[in-house]
């Protein structure tokens, strides 16, 4: 049909994407490809434009130029196949809702505007919570959750979307070790089953263990490809300005 069909293997692709906040460039003509059935990390120093890239690709913030393709198509044609998981800190957890209420928000696209939520939907949402070990907290008010539990709720909501592509913004920021392990195991399972995961990631020490592919970013693209090839000391030095690469996870 068109040239994009040739990239059948790319779940997510950005081309020449540029974004600016005021006069300050946040992303400069970035090209990147994320393959289907792989788990990819986006790494780079603070202010490198990692979250910005996901948000601009999803049309959440405006871009100056460039575009994003999902499964070779523009966003609006395949929105239902994509689940976006925002940073945990981007919402007010004091909102009057329970854990299962938030998970049910993941059904927004599959439910019509007037379909009432019934037993079937609740069972399905509980199944999603089961995947992240949160069933026992289904009726807990979300303000009473720990950081790790909040992140698990967000992951469960993304599961409820039954998407083929998960875009995660800092899924491991400020979560406990058990939660990190649960989420990684779950994402690896989804990827084995043919799904695709792309995560903004801070902790360089776990990139090799968790991810198949990597995009190293610092306003412009430094490297993009399999971890073995792209995740090199030279590329990291280029991205992090020659400073010694920090091994500790950065917390928000």
């Amino acid at each position, binding site marked *: 049909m068109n040239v994009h069909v040739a990239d059948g293997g790319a779940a997510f692709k950005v081309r020449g994407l540029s974004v600016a906040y005021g006069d300050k460039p946040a992303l400069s003509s970035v090209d990147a490809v994320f393959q289907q059935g792989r788990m990819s990390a986006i790494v780079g120093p603070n202010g490198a434009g990692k979250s910005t890239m996901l948000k601009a690709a999803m049309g959440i913030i405006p871009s100056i130029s460039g575009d994003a393709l999902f499964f070779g198509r523009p966003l609006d044609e395949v929105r239902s196949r994509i689940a976006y998981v925002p940073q945990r800190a981007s919402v*007010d957890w004091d*909102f009057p*809702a329970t854990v299962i*209420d*938030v998970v049910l*928000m993941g059904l*927004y696209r599959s439910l019509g505007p007037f379909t009432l939520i019934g037993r079937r939907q609740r069972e399905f949402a509980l199944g999603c919570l089961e995947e992240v070990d949160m069933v026992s907290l289904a009726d807990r008010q979300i*303000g009473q959750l720990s950081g790790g539990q909040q992140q698990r709720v967000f992951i469960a*909501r993304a599961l409820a*979307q039954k998407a083929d592509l998960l875009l995660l913004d800092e899924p491991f920021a400020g979560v406990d070790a058990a939660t990190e392990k649960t989420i990684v195991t779950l994402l690896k399972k989804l990827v084995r089953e043919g799904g695709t995961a792309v995560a903004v990631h801070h902790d360089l020490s776990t990139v090799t263990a968790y991810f198949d592919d990597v995009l190293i970013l610092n306003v412009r693209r430094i490297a993009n490809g399999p971890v073995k090839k792209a995740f090199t000391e030279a590329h990291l030095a280029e991205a992090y300005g020659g400073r010694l690469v920090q091994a500790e996870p950065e917390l928000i």
Partner: protein
Amino acid sequence: MGDLYIGLVLVPMTIGALAAVSCALLGNFLVLRKQSLMGDAVSHVVLPGIVVAFILTGSISVGPMLLGAAAAALISALLIELVRNLGKVEPGAAMGVVFTALFALGVVLLEQSNTREVHFDVEHALYGNLESLVWLSGMDAGSLFNRAALADLPPQLGRLVLALAAVLIFLVVFWRPLVVSTFDPVFAQAAGVPVRFIGAALISLVAIVAVTAFEAVGAIITIAMLICPAAAARLMTNRLIPQLLWSVLFALLSAVVGFWAAGSGMALIGSGFSVSAAGMIAAVSGAILAVCAFAAPQRRGAVN
């Protein structure tokens, strides 16, 4: 129950209650979106709109006034966006600047214009005129079924019923996108919720309700009801729908208790005069919020 009870008490009390409930329902979402000030802003800027409409048309008929108020609300929303973007300041600051300036402009215009003769002044704008919205044909229960008597009902009653209907329809039709975009606007946008449209619709509805309520009961009730019942309700429960129901209950309680206290209540404590019903209704809603802040079950909010 006296003969004039329906006409002199029940009708104005119902008008106050309708205004209070419409404002309270929308107020829940303003409070959750940290946009409480927006209701305040809209209620304030309505004043210059009404005054300009009066100056232009020379009448206090409802049509031009509602138009003027709506235009002012729209202009203020645009100005707030402008100040926010050009000044790169937080939304609260932008709203504060715009609504204070426009309200002040309204007061100055009001003082300059020839409005005294038509009983249109600052006090009227602030407190409304709830006590005067009586139904003199409503002598007894029988007049509720008398077509001629019903035609004599204050027109504000009908307009507020329509405003409440608009609020209820909005909530039912847009419930899911409204809730999702209020809790997590970033997720909502990614999931294809028309976030901007929902936000604009909510603010427009606040403007419509504020204008309608303002004309009937004044700015004081409007501002108080957009914030107090919803804020108090949030302290009573951790679920959204119960929160809405609590806010409606608090709004009704404020209207009924406030209206009663302003008239009969003052007489009961031996005072020779009654006080503004609008002021008393707003004060009762503030008192409910204060009690909730000290004694409500969920006042601690999030633990973490």
